[in-house]
Every structure is written in C-alpha cells, then in structure tokens.
C-alpha cells in the first residue's frame, strides 16, 4: 500500500522535500499549503518544485540536507538533521539531545 500511496499522492520523502514539509507539520503544526510555502521559501524553490525529485536532489546536494542515494561525504542521518534544523530554523528533538550528549 505504501508504494501505491507514494505513486498516487506522496511528496516523496527524502527523494524530494517530503520530509522537510513534514518537519513543519511536526514542529510548528502548519497545515499543508503553509508548510509547503515555508519550505519552498527556505530552499529558494517554487512550491511545485519541492515534490520534484530531480530539482530537489540538486537543492539537497547544494544545502547538504541528505540525499536518497549513498553519496560519499554527503550528510547522512543525524548530520543531515543538524543541517535541516539550521536551514528550516526549527528545533529537532534528537539534534538537541545529540548536542547535549556530546557537550556541544
């Protein structure tokens, strides 16, 4: 069912900017149009572009936000989330805890 939903109506997760739009719903309770507009503004993209995997892969590469393919040296996991918190201007729970654990 995940595949069919993804094809029919999904933004695309880290293939595009689905995780970033979801971040704004999760951290700020934004409804979808507001969340998409906010993310597009922070990325310097159009609202339609943020669901486009080709355009977004370039942007994720430029901003080092984590990408779907295994790219040497690119941000992965928690380091991508450090970058996402900074770019979107939000607090991410596990990033805050990581900072505390390592004494940052």
């Amino acid at each position: 069912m995940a595949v069919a939903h993804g094809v029919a109506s999904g933004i695309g997760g880290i293939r595009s900017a689905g995780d970033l739009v979801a971040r704004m719903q999760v951290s700020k309770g934004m409804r979808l149009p507001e969340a998409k507009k906010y993310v597009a503004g922070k990325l310097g993209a159009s609202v339609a572009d943020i669901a486009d995997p080709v355009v977004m892969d370039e942007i994720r590469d430029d901003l080092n936000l984590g990408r779907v393919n295994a790219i040497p040296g690119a941000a992965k996991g928690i380091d991508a989330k450090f970058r996402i918190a900074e770019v979107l201007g939000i607090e991410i729970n596990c990033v805050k805890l990581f900072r505390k654990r390592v004494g940052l």
Partner: protein
Amino acid sequence: MSKFFTRMGDGFPVEMTDAEIRKDVEEGVADAAKRAKIEPLAADHLRYLTELFERPDRAVGVERGNEVVLSYDSATTKFKRGNVSVSKIQSLQIYERLLGADILELAHIDYSFKPVKPIVVFEQPILEQALLMTIPPLFYGAMPNLGLYSQPDGPCPNPGDLLPKGLIAEARASYAEQIEHSVKDMTYVGGTMYEAGADGINFDTTAAAGDAEFYATLKAIEELKKKHPAMCVQMGMASEFVLGMHGELSYNGVRLAGLYPHKQLELAQQVGVSIFGPAINIVPSRSLAWNTARTATFIKACTDVAKIPVHACVGMGVCGVPLTLTVPIDALTRASKALVDICRLDGL
C-alpha cells in the same frame, strides 16, 4: 448500456453502469451528511467521483503540485506481517530510502501501550540508533487499546460480562479504573520515547473500545503536552463514530459517545494534538464509489474547519480502501486521489 469495472467494499470486482455509480455516489454522500449532520459534497464533487470510478486506468494520481505528506502507522510491524526478515531499523530505512515516506514510525509488534511498557527500555536504544541513521521525522506509535485492561487480559472486571447482567454502575466503575491504568501507561511510554528523541508520539486506533478509551487518550495527551509542550502528537482514530460503551463520559463539557470525526477533531485540538487522523469505516457490501463518497463527505467536514494538519487513515478497511488483505492498486489510488483532491488533506 456500457458497464464500468469497479469493486465492492470487500474488494471483489463488480461491473456497474453510469447510473448505478452516480446513484451510489449520491447515496454515500447523503448517508454521511445525515449521520453526522454535516454539509453534503457539492455537485461538482459528485460528478468528479462518478468520473473517477468510471475511468479505465489501473492507477490514478493527484496533479503535480497537489502532493501530500505520507505518514505510516505501525510502520515497522508491516514488514513482520509480510514475513520479511529485516530488523526494525532496516524497515525504517526501507520506508525512508525506498518507499518515499515523509514521516517514519517505530513500533513494537504487540502494538499497544500496555505491552510496550515493560519493554520500553529495549525500544529506547532502537529508537536512539534509528534517529542517528534516518532523516525524516521519526515517531513512536502504539494503540491505547483499553480492552487490554479488563479481565482476562487485565486487572479490571470486564464490562462485556457486567453489562449483559444489568450491572451498569459496576461496568462504569470498571471503565473508570481502566482509564486510570491506561493513562499511566500512555504517559509513561509516550514521555519515555519522547525523552529518547522521538519527533512525536502516535496514538493509533484511538477509541477502538469506545468513549472510555477516547477519554483516556485525550487525558494522556493533555498530561504529556503539559510536561512536553513541544511534543508532536498524532491521533489516529479507530472509526467514524465513538461508541458509547460507558455512555456518560464527557471531556471539556462534550459528551464523547456518538461523536463524528469533525467533533472528534475539535476535542483533539483542544488537548494539543498536532496531527489528526480521521478513520471512516468501510461497508463491505456497498460499492467503493459509495464508500469513497461517504468517506470524503465525513473528512471534508474535518478539513474545512481544522486548525491542525489532517492525515486521513487511508489503510486497509477504512477511508475508501477495501476490507481485504490484498488491497488492489486501482482501489487504493482512487481513494488516495479522491480524498486529497476533494478534502484538501494535509497528509495520509
């Protein structure tokens, strides 16, 4: 007269004429509007739904720019159910890197807060490790499942045994005790997993045991939000209608028995829920055109007034998806597209 391929609510194929599909759409909308005392869908939405179920396409999808956020309840257990031999973290990576999930969810195979409580210390390090390796928001999810607090599974007398004997006061007393136990479990597990780094907690299949379970979940969320104001809380419902198993419970002055989704949403917002998931029952003996039209009517009444994101529970047996283990692509993509297009959902 030409006939169109579609399906019944149990997934079995059926051929219907244009007049039959149109009639089912109209009746589905009317049924929801009458039950919940809400506005019916507009004429252009009825036409849209009729045409959607007459299209020959195997798969359909939303227009570019109308895509929504996809969250997955009980995500890691889906692989176990499919008998796929991968760990929970590998399951999350598959959702993240292969399935395009926007929000991930870690879960215990026994997907209720009560059984998670004694093993929460084993769930925490899995969550901590998963958080280091994944990028999208990662929730921890479980069901309130009040049924586990009555005998023989739990400590309280079983209202199912008491009510047929006319012991109504005793049954209500049992529910009160069950609420106390379950609130403790939900706040303990939810708080513990949030403190381990989860981006949010999903209370899935809420109110499956009726108004007492809905009360317990609202109470637990209110307590958690007092302690952790930044916590994201997702509340997915069990069905379109809160059963009055207790019958006299109210929350913030609102009687819980009999609440339909748009009223469930209002209470969810009041206690601090961040993402609301309405669940609309499937009637297996009616067509998918009827079921989807009915679902869209209920959910549009939510999205029209919601102040928080609405992620409809569009899974097996709810919200226009047939009640079958092997959900057909034609059926699922029609439910997905119709609800996004008509209801302007924030997610699924």
